[in-house]
Every structure is written in C-alpha cells, then in structure tokens.
C-alpha cells in the first residue's frame, strides 16, 4: 500500500531538482517578513501547471514546507516572524541570536523543522483517513475552547507582571474586534475610516509589534544588533544535535501537537507553535529559562509549525477541506491538474498521493542542508553588517512586506502605528506577545463563541452546547490544568515530600 515504487517515483532526478528549487524558493520567501507561505505557494503555482501532477505536488509541497521553515530565520535573526507560524520562535530564538548563539538557534530550528516535518508527513502517510474523521468532530464550540486554551499562554508569556500580560492580551482581543464582524456584520471601532473596515491584519500587526521596536532600539544605541558568533565558523551541528537528542521527548510531543492542530481546518501553525510552546514551558525543568534564549523553546515551536504541513494535508487530501490557506491553493492546483481530492483519492489516485507524500518527506530532509547553508550566511551577514545598511534594509522589508499583504498602503500605515505603540508598551513592561496572541485568537474565539451560542439557542440548550461535548470537556480540563498547574504541582509536591519524609522545598 505504501509501496517502494512510489518512493522511487519521487526520487527521479527531475523530482529531486524540483524539490531543491521548491525548498530554496520557499525558504527565501518565508524568511521575508510579510510574505507568507500562502503567498509563496500562490506565486509559484503557475510554474507547476505544465508538470505532471505528482511533480507539481512535490514542488508545491517543497515550497510550502520551505516557507514555513524560512519564517524562523527572520524570527531568530530580526525578532520578526517571517510567517505567523514563527511567532513563538522569536521568544527564545532572538535572545539566543542576541547573545551570539544565532548559528546554534538556526541549526536547532532546522533540526526541529525536519523532525516536525517528518512526523507530520508520517501521520499523513499512515493515519490520514483516521485523523480526518477526528477533524470532522471539531465544531465551533471546540474552536472556541481551543482559542481560550491558546489564551492561557498569556500567563506563560507575561514577563514580570501577570496583570500587564493580561491587559496586553485584552487589548489585543479588543484590537481583533475592529472592523466588520464576521457574524452579524456589526461595524465596530472603525471611526468611519475605510482603512479600518477590514480590521487589523495579523501580519501587519506582527511586523509592526515585533520589528518596528527592534528598528527603533537599533538606531537609538551604538550597540550591535546581534553579538558576533561565539564559536568557530561551522553550523554547530553537533552541539545542536546533542541538545535535540537530550530534548527528544519535547521534539516529538511538539511535532504530534503540530500535526493534530494542523488537521483542524483554520487553526494553523501559529496556534500549533503557541500551544506546543506552552506545553514545553510547563513541563520543562528549565521553564524559568524560557523567553531568555532556551533552545527547547526553539525546538518545540519549529517542530510544531512544520508538523502542521503534513497535518494540514490530511483534511485537504482525504476530505477536500483545506486545513490551512496554502493547502487551499495547493488544492486548487490539484484541480487544475485534474486530480479531485476526497475520500476516494487514496484508493483511486494512490500513485499521485503516495508519490507526493514521499516527495514531502524528501523535501523535509532537504531542508537540513539547504536550511543550514542559508541560515549560516544569513546569520553571519546580519551579525556583521553595518547598522547603516541593516536598518534601512529591514525597514524596506517591513514596509513592502506589510504592503504586499493586500497591496494596500493602509496595512503599512497600520504596521508603523502599531509599531510605535508597541515600542512604548514594551518599554514599560507590556510585552508584544500577549497583544499578538489576542489579535490572532480573538477572531477564532469570537466566531466559535457566536456560532455555538446560536446553535445552543436554536436547540434550547446553550450550556449543553458549550460544555456537553466530549472534546470540549477535554479542552476545558486542559485549560484548568494549565491555569492551575503551578498550584497543583506545589500541593502535590509538598504532599509527596511529606510522604517520603522530606521537608518541602
């Protein structure tokens, strides 16, 4: 069923070449802030029209996986997520680069992306039909609780005062309500401005809140942007592999979380990486180091976001429901090729599907040499370039990146305005991450809430609609666990200590 002949089909010289081209193109586009994986796939789709369906899919898969991975470069080196999936990579990746461990952070990110990509592709290969059924059980209420689960991460992201973190999160949630409401059509907080009708775009908010404060700080001081590499001229591969092996459980768990979140249509890499970051921080013995340049923080987020690639293809190929926006573009390309996705695809179009999955695995493996090479030179360039080149070039990427989202100057203006506000807030201890979390999760939570409320009201059982479904109950239990884990762990530890006759620590 998962025959070697399909693997051999994927290994033809032409497919290998397409894989390399796809990974390189995707990585470069993904590394530019504002240019998302969706754009990378959409822009390069026309190149695949003249190819055979399997080769076209292999190239598109390579572009997609490369773009998700490429987002980590900007996150690590410039503190700006290249793609929304790489938000959580900034938390520890940038502090590592700042102290001169950028090469190690890039290598850790590459290894984690490869592991995540492989786990996601293996789930796609072996468990696709089974997991697609699981995705169908997710209704609006489950999305609502999942978004609230993501919001519990604010506690983890709040450096210093928790109240400041929650205030930032609430501010982000309020920002997410700007524009025309998805359900009901209320026009909210637009001040009669057309610019605000479409709401605050997540990518321009990301660029503004993360990148502009970095630029402002860069020009205000004489200090270097990043410390020069600490060690030698290599990739620090051995060191990163040692850390990865030591952190193998975190890597695999994050990859599985990424795959499962990726299966849920609309959830995407940003939620996957945030949830896996929260879980990694909660369970790590070095949780106090998270946010200060802990390699485990890079491992978990990069493993999770690259695992969403394979996970997202599960509902796309099995059910014909795209898991993420790039999946939707790839599904369109498949239709152009005459391939119809759906339950029968695996049995009737096995040749194409399995060749594609092996191609995805191949592209993931190719990310290792390609990513290490690009990452090494990117880090050394950014660490050694003069500020008088670095600042305007990053500013270029911010302005064009935010403009390119909708070809609209309004997004660039929003980016700069949020950047200025973000710099002031950050300076006084209101970190940008809770605000961004609110902006990302706000629409998911609100849509899920309103839909669930309407469904519950129509059925005459609103409480049952929110609390009665088994998957909802599991997520609610997880929320309670995450929120009260510090209390639980202290109580249980002190009881254990009493039991074994040791004084509580």
């Amino acid at each position, binding site marked *: 069923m998962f025959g070697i002949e399909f693997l051999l089909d994927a290994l033809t010289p032409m497919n290998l070449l397409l894989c390399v081209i796809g990974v390189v193109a995707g990585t470069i586009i993904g590394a530019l802030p504002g*240019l998302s994986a969706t*754009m990378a796939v959409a*822009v390069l789709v026309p190149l695949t029209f003249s190819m055979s369906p399997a080769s076209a899919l292999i190239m598109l898969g390579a572009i997609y996986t490369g773009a998700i991975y490429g987002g980590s470069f900007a996150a690590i080196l410039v503190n700006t997520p290249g793609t929304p999936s790489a938000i959580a990579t900034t938390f520890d990746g940038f502090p590592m680069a700042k102290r001169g461990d950028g090469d190690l952070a890039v290598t850790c990110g590459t290894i984690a992306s490869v592991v995540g990509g492989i786990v996601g592709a293996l789930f796609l290969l072996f468990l696709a039909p089974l997991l697609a059924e699981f995705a169908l059980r997710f209704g609006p209420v489950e999305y609502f609780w999942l978004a609230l689960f993501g919001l519990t991460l604010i506690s983890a992201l709040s450096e210093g*005062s928790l*109240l*400041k973190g*929650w*205030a930032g*999160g*609430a*501010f982000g*949630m*309020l920002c997410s*309500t700007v524009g025309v*409401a998805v*359900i*009901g*059509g*209320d026009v*909210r*907080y637009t001040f009669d401005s057309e610019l605000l009708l479409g709401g605050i775009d997540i990518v321009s908010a990301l660029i503004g809140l993360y990148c*502009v404060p970095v*630029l*402002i*700080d*860069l*020009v*205000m*001081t*004489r200090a270097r942007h990043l410390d020069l590499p600490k060690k030698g001229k290599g990739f620090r591969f051995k060191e990163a592999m040692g850390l990865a092996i030591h952190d193998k459980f975190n890597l695999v768990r994050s990859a599985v979380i990424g795959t499962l979140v990726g299966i849920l249509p609309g959830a995407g890499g940003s939620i996957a990486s945030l949830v896996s970051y929260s879980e990694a921080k909660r369970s790590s013995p070095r949780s106090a180091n998270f946010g200060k340049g802990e390699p485990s923080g890079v491992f978990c987020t990069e493993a999770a976001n690259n695992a969403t690639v394979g996970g997202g293809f599960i509902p796309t190929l099995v059910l014909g429901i795209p898991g993420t926006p790039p999946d939707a573009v790839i599904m369109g390309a498949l239709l152009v090729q005459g391939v119809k996705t759906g339950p029968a695809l695996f049995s009737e179009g096995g040749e194409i599907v399995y060749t594609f999955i092996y191609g995805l695995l191949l592209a993931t493996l190719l990310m290792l040499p390609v990513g290490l090479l690009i990452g090494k030179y990117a880090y050394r360039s950014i660490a050694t370039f003069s*500020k*008088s*080149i*670095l*600042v*305007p*070039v990053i*500013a*270029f990427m*911010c*302005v*064009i990146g935010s403009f*390119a989202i909708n*070809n609209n*100057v309004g997004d*660039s*203006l929003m*980016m*700069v*305005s949020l*950047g*200025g506000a973000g*710099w*002031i807030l950050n300076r*006084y*201890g*209101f970190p940008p991450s809770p605000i961004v979390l609110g902006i990302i999760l*706000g629409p998911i939570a609100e849509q899920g809430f*309103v839909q669930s*409320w309407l469904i519950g009201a129509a059925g005459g059982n609103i409480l049952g609609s929110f609390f009665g479904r088994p998957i909802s109950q599991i997520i609610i239990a997880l929320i309670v666990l995450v929120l009260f884990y510090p209390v639980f762990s202290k109580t249980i530890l002190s009881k254990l200590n009493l039991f074994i006759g040791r004084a509580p620590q």
Partner: protein
Amino acid sequence: MSKRYDVGSMVISVCLALCGLFAWFHAGEFSALGGIFPKTFAIVLIICSLGYVAACFVKGGDGEVQARGSEQFWRGGALFVVLLLWCLLLDKAGFLVTSVISYVILAVLADHDHAVSVKRILIHSGLGIVIAVIFYIGFSQFLGVPLPKGILPF
C-alpha cells in the same frame, strides 16, 4: 524603605483603562452578539489595568524603567516619523522615490560612527538606489506585487 513608583507603567495602564472604557461605552451600539466580546474584553482590560495601578500603590510596582546605555531618543523618534511619512507618501510619490529618500535618511540615522557628509550621503544614495531597484524588480516582476509607481513612469 520608600516605595519607587513605576510612573510610566501606571500612566500606560490608565491610558489602557481609558481605551477599555471607550470600547465598553461604544459596545452598547452593537447588536447583542456583536457586543459580547468587545464588552467582555473591555472589562478585562479595565480591571487588569486599574488592578496594576492599584498594585503599584500597594506594592510599589516594578520600579522605573532603566535606561539602556546611552540612548538617543531623537533618533528613534525620527525613524518612526520617516517610516510614517514613507507609508503616507508611498501611493503619491511612488515606491522608488520614497524608498531611496527613506533609505538615505534611515542610513544616516543608524550611523553613529560617521559624521554626515556629502560623500557618505552619496554612498548611501547609491546603495539605496541599488537596493530599491532590486526590491522593486523582485516584488513587481517576480512576486506580482504592484508597487506604486507614483511620479515616475515605471
């Protein structure tokens, strides 16, 4: 020991609370379902912001923000203004013109080691033109992003 109030954070918190108050007030104009989220999070924002201010009075806050080395705030402010003007003029003056001018100003602002001279401005202008053209071709030709032409014919 006397308490050190984090005045900056307290001012920001009060501003956020005012934002929350504004959002809550206007949420009354929305439909019942459209107003639930804005109202809820406006209240959370007000409670957390004022809670922080109250905590500052009780516990003394996080202390004043420490200056990070020798900072030149005017450079940061100027960068923000340049970015803002760049975006405001992007449609009218075009990508190439605004980008080259912004490049030169930002390069001068970021250069702490050299005094401003005609020679350096010419170097920055040359680099700015090369980089702007690379970005222009890359985005408009290869990625299909229609960058504004403005006053130039291309």
